[in-house]
């Protein structure tokens, strides 16, 4: 399994080279990897269904208990069918959708494949850290794919919104998962669910995890990012925003529900927000004229439906949830791909402009009707099977179940209405409207769309063979005895389905004739306005905090740092002070002249008037310290000190060119009070550091155990006779990698700041010249 995930990333790294030769056909190469993963996963089907979920784990840092562990259970396998199956189809589709020789081909193919790999990892991950890692990887891929090359402000805004909302949710989820893992005493997801912890902490953790799931799956009140993300190219929307990424939230809820669905903190938000989302999405979908945005709100609505099903627990409910996850992945990707086909063929996605497409291409329309009927829950399609099961699940007659059932029926009626609106609006021929001009988009686009559309039909009839997989997930709950089927006889759910069809038709007719009443939401209930207000508030808070803390005065910063250093560790030092013991004047006579040199230089710095002089004298102090290291027998330390000192000198000189030559201007002498404050702080700091050094070095008798171990093991286990180097590159190599990462980030950040400042300084000059010449 790990190999399959790594293969995605490895091939993605090779794609740019292939794209140079093969152009847009590179998508076909990319499609091979998800397709192979799908075959590989289906190959394991027998074992998975028999209850022996294959597991793999790679302990990459056993010292701190970190490992990547993967587990393929029925739910994971179901998700792989969507992630890899739809992924392969979408990549094939992209190969014909992208313009030949277009600029974004390399970028998009790489990102789509990386995304497919991350998604595969996400559904296979069995420990919370791997789960989080892959989760955030999908978020980043989504940002890059939605943003594209960031050509317009609208695109950039949408991509940022998707990143901020899902990133915020991801962080909340990480916190929740860690709380859960700590409470349960294990970070393996399968173990946490098998033995769910209890207590108030668990309730908090569960809510945090839900925030992650709800943001990712675009539930109220986080949903606006999904319709906004429709600025992405259609294949991206079909994959990320229909089949795969937005399902991650549903998947997370489905994954944890068997352990926590009894908790009120779990099912109340899931069911309430899910139902609300389902109804809201349905209404908004009826209002849209852009087919893609219609589908986006349809997705929001369906995701709410799925949330309710997978989140509320119970065998039949989970079975319905699993069936609809599969059905939704199939029909929604088909429909999104259809929108791409229409867009290519006619150049528009607007219902008010499209006309006559259905008559021109009846076969294409047939596939579209199949997919839309599955979405509407019309027999004999998989969506119908799932919806019937859902109605059965909530048909117990209890108060809670009945309320949910009523909302589900209402939501399904809306779904039927907007499905009808999609087909009639996109493919119908309104009276008195000339058919729109269109060119046949080619088999390469239609076939990838037709496959999932047909699959919805085939799966509905193959449901007895499909059931073991879907029930494999639902088996986590007690209570069996329900079987998926197209025909259960004349039952209450069938009656409800008939009601849904009738209601949906009436709603559609009403909307087409009269339109929806234009209800203005109050400001506080508008989720998009809420998002904007939150972002603005954060900005304002950041500005206020920065303005208060970063006053821009170097003496103030230094003073704060020094005072903190004196007060905090100084108090501890005074509390547990030990007499430093007998003092020696020197260890080696060589220390004396060096110390004198350093002291003289220090005293001279105080009276220096020019900055350059002060910098050079500081350099002398630094070299003196280096010399002391050398005398004490630390050549490595001394070498590093000398080199850093030299470099610092040069950097100082660079910076000094920007500053006035002298510290103090003769005509503006500094106030006495400020000088005294500075002097007191400086002297206190110096005394504190000197005292600390004396006490610390006196309290040390002999080598600590750690040092002795380092010295003993340097040669045998690190193969180095230089202990310092053995520590840096072996014993504490993890620190080294962290430190160079910090260095890289700091250098890049400093470079950006400085270069940015240059640009900002140069720009006004250029404007002036332009004004003069213009």
């Amino acid at each position, binding site marked *: 399994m790990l190999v399959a995930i790594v293969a995605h990333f490895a091939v993605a790294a090779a794609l740019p080279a292939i794209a140079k030769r093969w152009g847009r056909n590179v998508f076909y190469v990319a499609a091979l990897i998800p397709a192979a993963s799908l075959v590989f996963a289906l190959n394991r089907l027998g074992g998975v269904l028999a209850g022996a979920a294959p597991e793999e784990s790679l302990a990459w840092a056993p010292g701190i208990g970190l490992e990547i562990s993967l587990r393929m259970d029925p739910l994971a396998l179901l998700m792989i069918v969507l992630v890899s199956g739809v992924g392969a189809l979408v990549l094939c589709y992209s190969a014909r959708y992208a313009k030949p020789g277009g600029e974004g081909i390399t970028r998009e193919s790489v990102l789509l494949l990386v995304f497919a790999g991350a998604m595969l990892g996400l559904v296979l991950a069995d420990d919370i850290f791997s789960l989080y890692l892959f989760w955030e990887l999908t978020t980043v891929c989504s940002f890059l794919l939605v943003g594209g090359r960031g050509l317009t402000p609208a695109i950039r805004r949408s991509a940022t919104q998707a990143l901020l909302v899902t990133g915020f949710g991801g962080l909340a989820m990480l916190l929740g998962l860690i709380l859960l893992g700590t409470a349960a005493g294990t970070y393996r997801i399968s173990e946490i669910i098998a033995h769910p912890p209890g207590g108030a902490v668990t309730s908090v953790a569960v809510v945090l995890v839900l925030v992650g799931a709800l943001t990712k799956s675009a539930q109220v009140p986080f949903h606006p990012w999904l319709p906004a993300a429709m600025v992405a190219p259609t294949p991206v929307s079909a994959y990320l925003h229909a089949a795969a990424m937005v399902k991650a939230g549903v998947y997370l809820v489905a994954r944890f529900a068997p352990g926590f669905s009894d908790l009120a903190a779990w099912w109340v938000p899931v069911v309430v927000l899910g139902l609300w989302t389902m109804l809201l999405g349905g209404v908004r979908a009826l209002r849209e004229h852009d087919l893609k945005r219609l589908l986006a709100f349809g997705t929001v609505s369906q995701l709410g439906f799925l949330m309710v099903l997978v989140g509320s627990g119970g065998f039949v409910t989970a079975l319905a949830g699993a069936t609809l996850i599969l059905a939704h992945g199939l029909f929604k990707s088909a429909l999104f791909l259809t929108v791409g086909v229409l867009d290519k063929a006619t150049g528009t996605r607007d219902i008010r402009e499209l006309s006559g497409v259905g008559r021109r291409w009846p076969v294409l329309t047939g596939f579209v009707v199949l997919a839309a009927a599955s979405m509407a829950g019309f027999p004999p399609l998989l969506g119908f099977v799932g919806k019937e099961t859902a109605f059965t699940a909530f048909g117990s007659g209890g108060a809670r179940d009945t309320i949910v059932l009523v909302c589900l029926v209402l939501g399904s009626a809306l779904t039927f209405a907007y499905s009808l609106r999609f087909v009639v609006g996109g493919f119908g021929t309104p009276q008195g409207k000339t058919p729109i001009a269109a060119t046949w988009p080619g088999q390469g686009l239609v076939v990838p769309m037709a496959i999932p559309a047909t699959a919805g039909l085939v799966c509905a009839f193959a449901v007895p063979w499909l059931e073991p997989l879907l029930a494999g997930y639902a088996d986590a709950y007690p209570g069996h005895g329900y079987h998926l089927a197209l025909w259960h006889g004349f039952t209450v759910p069938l009656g409800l389905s008939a009601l849904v069809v009738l209601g949906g038709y009436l709603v559609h007719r009403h909307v087409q004739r009269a339109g929806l009443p234009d209800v203005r939401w109050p400001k506080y209930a508008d989720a998009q306005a809420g998002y904007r207000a939150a972002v603005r508030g954060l900005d304002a808070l950041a500005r206020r905090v920065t303005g208060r803390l970063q006053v821009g005065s170097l003496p103030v910063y230094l003073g704060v740092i020094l005072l903190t250093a004196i007060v905090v560790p100084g108090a501890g030092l005074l509390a547990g002070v030990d007499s430093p013991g007998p003092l020696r004047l020197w260890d080696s006579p060589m220390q004396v002249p060096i110390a004198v040199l350093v002291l003289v230089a220090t005293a001279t710095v105080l009276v220096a008037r020019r900055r350059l002089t002060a910098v050079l004298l500081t350099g002398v102090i630094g070299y003196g310290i280096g010399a002391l290291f050398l005398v004490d027998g630390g050549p490595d330390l001394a070498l590093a000190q000398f080199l850093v000192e030299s470099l610092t000198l040069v950097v100082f000189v660079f910076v000094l060119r*920007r500053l006035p030559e002298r510290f103090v201007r003769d005509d503006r002498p500094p106030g006495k009070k400020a000088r005294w404050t500075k002097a007191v702080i400086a002297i206190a700091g110096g005394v504190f550091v000197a005292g600390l050094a004396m006490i610390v070095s006196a309290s040390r008798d002999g080598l600590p155990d750690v040092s002795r171990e380092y010295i003993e093991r340097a040669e045998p286990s690190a193969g180095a006779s230089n202990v310092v180097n053995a520590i840096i590159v072996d014993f504490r190599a993890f620190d080294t990698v962290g430190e160079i990462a910090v260095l*890289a980030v700091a250098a890049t950040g400093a470079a950006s700041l400085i270069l940015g400042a240059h640009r900002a300084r140069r720009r006004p000059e250029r404007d002036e010249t332009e004004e003069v010449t213009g």
Partner: protein
Amino acid sequence: MTKWTEWDAPKERWLLTERERGGWPRSLLFELCTRIVFPTVLVMSVYLLLAGHNDAGGGFSGGLVAGLAFVLRYLAGGSAELAAVRALRPPVLIGSGMSIAVITALVPAAFGAPILSTALWTVTLPLVGTFKIATSLFLDIGVYLLIIGVVLDLLRTLGTGIEQGGLDS
């Protein structure tokens, strides 16, 4: 007798300099020495990198020495001198150093060992003799490249600042 506040003002130029068209003060002596010393310093830095395992040195020191070689060239001739190494773009150096270090860290995991663990190879080359290589050397190489990149980045950014603004004042 000068006022005591003036005692640290420079009284004369240390080196004869000629101003180039670009405005960079140019000292022939300095430039010549730098050019002669430059390759030696680079070799020295590689020595420090390789010797670090058993003597004083290591990737950090080696990288700093190599970086200082470039600093010397820059001080002698400005960015024109650095044009010679324009092929070494600092972000690329930083990125490849970081990548080498991370890959070195992760490779042991593929062989079932904890990340960042070290393997020792003993290699015998004809004429050269037998020597020992620890895989942690690659981590050191990563650090070395990254440090050079950071120093060159400093020259590129702070250095251009001088040339564009500082010299005029």
